[in-house]
């Protein structure tokens, strides 16, 4: 092994083998935040869903916002990673696993909320397709059932997409550890040896998975948008919602990825692997998505305004200059104005610049989800049914806890699994055929073949 490969392996395995007191402090703090959410949920189960701010006519608010938001964040990983794998972008190597992990955990967190939102979550199994004396079977014409199938498929695919390329790294850890660690990593490595056949099968499988997961990822957020657009409700019943949601999901996903990578770089000292150029490239993607998001918002707003349909205009004006206007214009500022300004200039497209823009985008995209749901529900067709919504403490705690849970799961994952794919990084270090230093003259002609 070359010195650089040796150093790479040591650097990336260090977080697994060495534990500092900072790790325990971070875990403790994040666990505390998660406990707050668990407490809020327990309180809700005990007292009933009335402890939330939900009231007629707004029956969907924070929790469905959280659901849509976290499913959106999940587009950071598998989709971006799959696209970068398929186009064989060399700079993807240190990024892919960091991204794929976000998908797995964000999906788990997001998928929890429809159950939390049931009111009586212990009866969640009533949603399952099983024959009962009630003679109720899933109605395949309901977008909520589509959600179940889409999210299950995406979660299964994403977990496998994350796990498969980790197998060789588990084998690496297995060979470098002893005791219980060796047993655990040995089991996770499935007896991987690294024969040429295994490498080929793994790479073929990853290619197929990448091809399959992209349409699934697009379908997931399109289907989440169908939860709204299939209803004949002002500002929801729109054909633009599918692509609009997908674009927003990728947008928030990239932002989350940038924040996660910056945190890993800082706290795990991965400066040698997560270079400023990775942030610059992701920053450019974020800029592109910000412009695309702006385009979608403009198209949606202009069409509504031009149509001047009274029920839609009541929602429209509530967000443009009514009670939701402060949230709306904050969203426009942090999703469009700030990122476009920061990321358009190469000088500002630094690690710090990208992180500032991304924090804004994550907050802005949560607001966007909220503003899609709540103003519409509070301004339906007839003005006598209008209402308002104000969140209560249990909902706010649940929202905060989701961020704590994401952080906690991410920290624990990076403690037990190499957060950067070591073998893929090594492949990236291999010399190109034209530049390779061939030690024996005949090697270049006899042994090496074109890829």
């Amino acid at each position: 092994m070359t010195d650089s490969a040796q150093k790479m392996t040591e650097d990336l395995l260090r977080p697994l083998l060495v534990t500092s007191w900072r790790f325990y402090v971070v875990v403790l703090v994040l666990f505390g935040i998660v406990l707050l959410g668990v407490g809020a949920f327990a309180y809700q189960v005990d007292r009933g869903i009335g402890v939330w701010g939900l009231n007629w006519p707004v029956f969907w608010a924070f929790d469905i916002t959280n659901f849509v938001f976290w499913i959106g964040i999940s587009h950071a990983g598998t989709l971006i990673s799959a696209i970068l794998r398929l186009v064989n972008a060399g700079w993807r190597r240190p990024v892919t696993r960091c991204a794929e992990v976000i998908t797995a955990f964000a999906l788990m967190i997001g998928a929890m909320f429809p159950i939390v939102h049931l009111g009586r979550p212990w009866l969640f199994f009533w949603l399952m397709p099983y024959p009962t004396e009630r003679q109720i079977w899933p109605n395949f014409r309901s977008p909520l059932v589509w959600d179940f199938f889409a999210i299950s498929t995406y979660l299964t695919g994403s977990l496998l997409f994350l796990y498969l390329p980790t197998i060789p790294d588990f084998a690496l850890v297995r060979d470098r550890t002893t005791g219980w660690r060796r047993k655990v990593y040995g089991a996770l490595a499935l007896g991987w040896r690294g024969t040429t056949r295994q490498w080929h099968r793994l790479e073929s499988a990853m290619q197929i998975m990448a091809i399959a997961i992209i349409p699934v990822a697009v379908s997931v957020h399109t289907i989440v948008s169908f939860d709204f657009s299939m209803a004949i409700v002002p500002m929801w019943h729109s054909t633009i919602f599918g692509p609009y949601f997908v674009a927003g999901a990728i947008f928030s996903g990239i932002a989350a990825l940038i924040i996660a990578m910056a945190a890993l770089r800082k706290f795990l000292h991965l400066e040698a692997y997560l270079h400023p150029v990775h942030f610059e490239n992701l920053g450019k993607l974020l800029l592109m998505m910000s412009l695309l998001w702006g385009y979608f918002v403009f198209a949606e707003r202009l069409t509504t305004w031009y149509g001047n349909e009274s029920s839609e205009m009541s929602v429209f004006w509530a967000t443009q200059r009514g009670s939701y206007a402060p949230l709306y214009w904050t969203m426009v500022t942090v999703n469009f104005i700030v990122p476009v300004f920061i990321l358009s200039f190469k000088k500002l497209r630094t690690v710090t610049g990208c992180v500032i823009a991304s924090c804004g985008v994550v907050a802005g995209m949560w607001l966007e989800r909220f503003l899609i749901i709540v103003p519409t529900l509070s301004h339906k067709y007839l003005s006598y049914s209008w209402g308002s919504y104000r969140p209560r403490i249990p909902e706010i705690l649940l929202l905060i806890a989701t961020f704590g849970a994401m952080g906690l799961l991410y920290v624990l994952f990076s403690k037990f699994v190499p957060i950067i794919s070591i073998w893929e990084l090594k492949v990236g270090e291999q010399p190109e055929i034209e530049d390779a230093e061939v030690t024996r003259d005949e090697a270049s002609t006899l042994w090496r073949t074109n890829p």
Partner: protein
Amino acid sequence: MAARLPAMYGLFEQPEAAQLAFRSLRQAGVAESDITVISSEPFEHFEFSHRDRSLTLFRLAGIGGVLGFIIGVSLTAGTEVAWPINVGNMPILAWWPNLVIIFEMTMLSAILTTVVSLLVTARLPSRAASLYDPEVSDGKILVGVPLRSDRTPDAIRRALDAAGALVVKTAEFQK
């Protein structure tokens, strides 16, 4: 319990040397399928990596997709016909919404088939004492051959040494 076979292998620092060993063993009369090359990273540009290429996984994924499609159609259409529910003036067999479920089932099945095919064709998980050396995870490349009665260990050792093996070892493994 599977019979254990003796094997001889060399550890190499560079892929070029491993390739030379691969070629020397072939010239010494060892069949390509008998030569095992193990590394901690794939070396796609080298000839020894090319012999195991196959489109099997792609074909199986396609078959899995078709299977998923059939399951999706059966699940949606079968349920709707068996338990007809009238919803909003839609037909009982509503193909547009069913397409969503059918698509997800198709992709899920293709994904699961890919993973199962990977595990089966790559012979994972495996607890057999296969030919392996932990030094592979330190970046060494293992090139090995099972020792059979028709092969002289000396010829194999010579071929591995001549290619620049750092060390040549013998071991027993389960075929």
